[in-house]
């Protein structure tokens, strides 16, 4: 404290003065504005997410439905040469169903009837016969899928002519909306009413299988080595730096790597789930390594000391004590990494998985496509019918991603142990 005389002018602040009150009010107002800005930022992000999901739902849910036209088929009067007692696949294939279906539609719906139903509508009649061959002895009402134009018009997005046709069909009382099972069971095609996601889904499944089988053991082994055994040398530093860098490399670079090494150098099959899985495994591995190291780090040293103390070898300590305790954390990281790989598109475009593939892959070396790439391909289609299919496929993809992330959160909450 200085001993100088206090200056006479320096009086205590008069908090009650008008000037001070105004100043405090201004500061509080600024505080409220700042808080409101923060809230606004969070709400904007939430609103964007909500807007995105609502748009996808609004477009996509229609993709799961299809417009059907009920047509009565007089089987005995039809030119079909089918014996109800001996209905085989071969007989059905040779019976001339497509022509007959067109004739039936024209008879029931007027001269333009064949254009109103989907080109593959005869499959509905075939399936009806397969389900119940006795149907061939009577007249039956069968719901045929409508053509794309009619489907769109019924969902409110059609051309004037199609709208008129829909109006006519509605008055006849034959129009109905049913669940589109084709969407879940068929593959890519050219007609939006007939496309499905089964092929892409199976491709995704095979690709993820390859990714998991490669990245999980290698990732866990790397994490164990770096965390438990690696000596502190320049060699170990290089490994660590490469892993951290790989985690930040843009995904498309991995696609370039896959293209030049796997396809052009090793001559592995193009567009195959094998190559896609290998490329994604390289991307997923750093994620698993980083998550695995954190999980291993969280296991307290006392566990290792106790195991070493009763005579376990370093390998036994790690594989019998540390790894089981760290496994839930490693699994959580693995699921999150796999979810990222499942949504990844760009590297797979590089290795040729954007081909038009109308048959589901039978194995990991068959040409395949995956869900995100299928979404990308459909989004490029000109036909309006693909808009709702794209959104519907997005819904399927999002449901899977949500399920995987939910599983990760559940595992984390259920098995996470707090060591203290």
């Amino acid at each position: 404290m200085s001993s100088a005389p206090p200056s006479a002018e320096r009086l205590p602040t008069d908090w009650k003065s008008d000037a001070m009150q105004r100043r405090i009010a201004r500061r509080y107002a600024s505080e409220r504005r700042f808080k409101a800005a923060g809230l606004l930022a969070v709400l904007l992000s939430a609103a964007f997410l909500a807007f995105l999901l609502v748009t996808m739902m609004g477009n996509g849910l229609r993709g799961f439905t299809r417009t059907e036209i009920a047509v009565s088929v007089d089987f005995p009067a039809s030119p079909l040469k089918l014996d109800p007692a001996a209905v085989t696949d071969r007989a059905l294939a040779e019976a001339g169903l497509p022509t007959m279906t067109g004739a039936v539609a024209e008879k029931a719906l007027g001269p333009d009837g064949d254009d109103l139903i989907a080109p593959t509508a005869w499959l509905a009649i075939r399936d009806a016969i397969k389900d119940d061959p006795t149907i061939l002895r009577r007249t039956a009402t069968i719901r045929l899928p409508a053509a794309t134009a009619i489907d769109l018009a019924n969902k409110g997005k059609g051309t004037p002519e199609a709208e008129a046709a829909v109006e006519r069909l509605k008055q006849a009382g034959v129009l109905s909306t049913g669940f589109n099972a084709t969407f879940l069971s068929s593959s890519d095609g050219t007609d939006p009413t007939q496309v499905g996601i089964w092929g892409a889904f199976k491709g995704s499944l095979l690709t993820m299988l390859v990714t998991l089988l490669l990245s999980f053991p290698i990732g866990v082994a790397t994490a164990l080595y770096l965390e438990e055994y690696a000596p502190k040398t320049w060699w170990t530093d290089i490994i660590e730096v490469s892993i951290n860098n790989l985690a930040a490399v843009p995904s498309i670079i991995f696609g370039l790597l896959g293209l030049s090494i796997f396809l052009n150098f090793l001559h592995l099959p193009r567009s195959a789930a094998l190559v896609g899985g290998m490329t994604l495994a390289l991307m997923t591995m750093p994620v698993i390594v980083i998550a695995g190291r954190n999980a291993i780090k969280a296991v307290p040293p006392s566990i290792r000391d106790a195991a070493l103390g009763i005579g376990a070898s370093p390998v036994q300590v790690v594989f019998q004590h540390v790894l089981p305790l760290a496994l839930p954390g490693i699994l959580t990281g693995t699921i999150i990494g796999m979810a990222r790989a499942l949504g990844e598109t760009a590297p797979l475009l590089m290795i040729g998985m954007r081909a038009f593939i109308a048959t589901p892959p039978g194995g990991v070396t068959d040409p395949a496509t995956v869900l995100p790439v299928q979404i990308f391909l459909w989004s490029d289609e000109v036909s309006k019918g693909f808009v709702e299919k794209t959104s519907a496929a997005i819904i399927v993809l999002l449901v899977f991603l949500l399920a995987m992330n939910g599983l990760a959160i559940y595992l984390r909450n259920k098995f996470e142990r707090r060591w203290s």
Partner: protein
Amino acid sequence: MTGPAILLLLAGLGAIAWVSARARAIRFQTAARASGRRDAVHSLPGFHGWYVALWAVAPAALFLGVWANVSPGLVTQSVLTDPAARALPADGFARSAILGEARAIANGDQAAAFNPASEPLVQPYREAGSRYGMAGAALALVLAFAGGAYAFTRIRADFRARTRVERLVMALLLLASLLAIVTTLGIVASLLWESFRFFSMVNPVDFLFGLKWSPQSAAMGYGNDDAFGAVPLFWGTIFIGAIIAMIVAIPLGLMSAVYLTQYASPTVRRWMKPMLEVLAGVPTVVYGYFAALTVAPALRDLAAAIGISGASSESALAAGLVMGVMIIPFVSSMADDSIAAVPQSMRDGSLAMGATTSETIRRVLIPAALPGVVGGVLLAVSRAIGETMIVVMAAGLAANLTLNPFASVTTVTTQIVQLLTGDQEFDSAKTLAAFALGLVLFIVTLLLNIVALRVVKKYREAYE
């Protein structure tokens, strides 16, 4: 003998080796116990089992791996000595096409021959194939028995089986961790190699500083001069990823982090934090579709309504806005970490001096956390410029040098996808340009990451 059958047989042999070696080790153990010398046995019986099983399986499996790569050549050699092969054309390409077809038919990959010349070769192929297959299988089995027998005779009571098995485990772990280096080297090598080929056709200076990008015209034979000027691409990438996206992501991400950590009640935080994480988990192809389907047309109409000319339905703004939203959770979590790392005493000191919460945040917390926030923003930029699907779907292909956010620009990643999909001839400058662009992208993101991590690390140390 087919591949799977041999592998199954090998696995069976391994299992037998494991069981019998383990049984033998147990006998040692009981004998040692009976004689009262418990410390005479070094390893657990299971380790003896693994030791012998590995000796039985590993050499044979290695041999099979090598054989699978060598035998097709040997098969072809022996087919060529067949009298039927004398009719083959001397021309290398036609010759290998016929041989390939004959092999495909012999393996059952193809039902019938397109080229009748390959027909007579199918039978020799089949015979040679089965001959070499049998030889390989027999050799593998001999190796498996020899390895197993060798190891089986070595195990004794004081044999250190555990040390040997564990040495192999350690080698495998080291091998796995080396894969990260191999991948990094693979990326660098493949990008450098292909870029080198590209730069032998196109001058690097023209590539890095040229203002005109039209690889199509180069592909059509107008020459490579001034068709590969990448500056418009770099500008588009920076415009979308580093400018528009960051104008969206930095304020929203930073303010979200501030609000959620400093103001929000625990309930709000519990709901809003996962919401931001969901935003980060949405696949980029979904963002891209959303940008192209909903955001871009709306922005085009907006631009038309306020009278901006040159508005495109593939605008930089649409891609940048959506990319910014995608980056929000990233910026927010980085800012969150940095703010949490500021010592509590600094915050308490400011509040004790009578500052309001917002004054504390603005004048104390954010300045103190700034290096961390800047590092986070750099990481976000590196992620934004490497992002592909949003720009492929929403940003367009026209390489424009423009400041108009409603106009169409193109980016590095868009052009990589564009150059490498569709028809490919792998030696044209057009295809190789994609690798040169990839190399630039790789170097830039790498530098951004290194700088960002260094900034974050330095700042962390300051408060420790």
